[in-house]
């Protein structure tokens, strides 16, 4: 759960970030040190930046609404929503890691949603000054699960099914959608065409 910030002229808020780009200038924003959040301070930055771009693979209907990356070094507390700009989001040069993502579609009882969190295979990405790094997420999806074999039957433990994306991201808390497997197998060999008994 994150606080959010509404930029000048924007209709949609972004996750609250300690890094702001307002016009051509960039600023560091911080809340007061005792954490009361009663004071905010800003300071102009003079840094080199790069760009992170998200390349979502998979069904367009399941495209996440927010995919948030964060910087863990000098810019701790800076969060960037890659879905805020399809052409790429300008970030300070440094190392980034995937932090959180969410998909939401529909309202009320028809709402469909899932969250995305870093998986064990998620890796940090390095953004060099002036460089554009493309992050691929989504398909091909991997299903990990526990199973037991009982004779010729294979039992998949439902609660153990986990979905991972191509960047190692973990899809969790799926709502209004059951993870039901679609089984497939080789068809038996076609029968020879019936011949006349005569």
């Amino acid at each position, binding site marked *: *759960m*994150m*606080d*959010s*910030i*509404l930029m*000048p002229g*924007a*209709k949609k*808020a*972004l*996750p*609250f970030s300690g890094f*702001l780009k*307002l*016009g051509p200038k960039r*600023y*560091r924003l*911080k*809340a007061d*040190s005792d*954490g*009361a*959040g*009663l*004071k*905010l*301070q*800003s*300071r*102009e*930055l*003079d*840094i*080199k930046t790069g760009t992170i771009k998200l390349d979502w693979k998979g069904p367009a209907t399941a495209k996440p609404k*927010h995919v948030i990356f964060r910087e863990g*070094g*000098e*810019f*701790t*507390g800076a969060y960037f929503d890659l879905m805020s700009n399809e052409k790429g989001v300008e970030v*300070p040069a*440094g190392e980034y890691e995937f*932090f*959180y993502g*969410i998909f939401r579609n529909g*309202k*009320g*009882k028809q709402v469909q*949603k899932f969250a995305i*969190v870093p998986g064990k295979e998620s890796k940090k990405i390095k953004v060099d*000054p002036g460089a554009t790094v493309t992050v691929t997420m989504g398909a091909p999806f991997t299903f990990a699960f526990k199973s037991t074999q009982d004779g010729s039957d294979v039992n998949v433990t439902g609660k153990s099914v986990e979905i991972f994306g191509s960047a190692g991201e*973990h899809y*969790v*808390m*799926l*709502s*209004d*959608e*059951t993870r039901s497997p679609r089984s497939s197998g080789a068809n038996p060999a076609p029968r020879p065409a019936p011949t006349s008994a005569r």
Partner: protein
Amino acid sequence: MVCPGSRGTRRLLQAIPRRDGRGRSEVARTDGPQGAENAIWALSDAANSYYVNNNAELGTAIEKLVQAWKDAFKTNFLDKYYDDLRNFDQGQWNEWRKSLSRWNGLLSADQKRRKNELDEEALKKFTAEANDLAGVFEALGDKYVAGTCYYWAGASLDPDQNTKSPDPAKAIEYYKKALKFRDDLDHKDSWYTDLTSLVAKMELELKKGPVAKKPADKKPGQPGAPGNGGGPAALGGGELFAKDSKWVPAVSKIRRGPSRGGRAPFLVQRRLLHGLAQHWTPSESPRRSPSKPSSRSSRFPRKRSSFARRKPSMRSIRATRRRSPSSSGAPRRSSSRFLTFRRSTSFMAAMGSNQEAIHGTTVNVSADDNYAQIYYTPAASRSAVDVAGQKVRVFDDNGDGKMGSDPLMLKDFGQRMEGRSP
């Protein structure tokens, strides 16, 4: 920081035996301005009276308090702490009382330290006294109080809090001791989480260049100086901040949300929020407009509408520090009596129906005679935040009462799954 023997701890000890089940756990969780801390001090106070004065009545109260803690916070902390305290003999209790008066002195000094009223010499004395007192409590076996002393010793050397003579390495050492005691006692609250993050951040800073190791080389306010967020070097090379730039207060005002739509100015106790964690959904600007209530509450649209329509029955609660809603004109319901406040904010609340879709399943979350769940979302925002002449607006979407705070993390998805989720 709550003092032992304070009004809050005494009231809590009286309230606990009078209640049972959920009511008791609610008291343990939310009573008093400092919430859980009252319960901790109430335990040590009661244990002291129980063993020194042979006050048998307190035995039952202690057991109930320990159970209330378990019910409220799902940890064995108070149980473990009580196990430590019950092994004290008369001499140890005498020593504990004597040391506690020293601890009270340290508490007063800490308040001055936070206000930067201690000079370098006084800070050194403070650190030495905190370290010494931590050793005394550690020898006695009171890990909780020893942990607070080590924390103070660490804070007095923390570069973020001490720009005069900081010693980050030593501060980390003290902080780690404080964390270890909390670990031993199984008391991993928000304080523990915050301190763990702080230690990790300080260790990271220590590993970086020589400027971070010599914070005294620069005056506070200059780039790279401690306490102002300036690091040794920007990742792109050179200084992090623009030349001649300085930290400028971002002037802003708290917008409590519209008066229509059933938003009551209210004050939120942080602990209550943890139990009502929802996924973060970013604010949309129209949602805060007077004509349109929060979109987050759309999980319960029907109830919310009726909530808003029944505006005349709503009561605005304008509470001040350390005053409960009951003393501020709120309905005298048992649950509301124990809400405590820190600062002014507002939120919007709704109650569920018996058919709410949660994670694809229809769930009954309606109120009954004994129990009601209230779902709420913060309505206040910090508007017109002036950053270099441009206005931005900050929302407290995670509901921790702070606008612009770090994300709240749900460990193990609220124990529903493995892993973590913001």
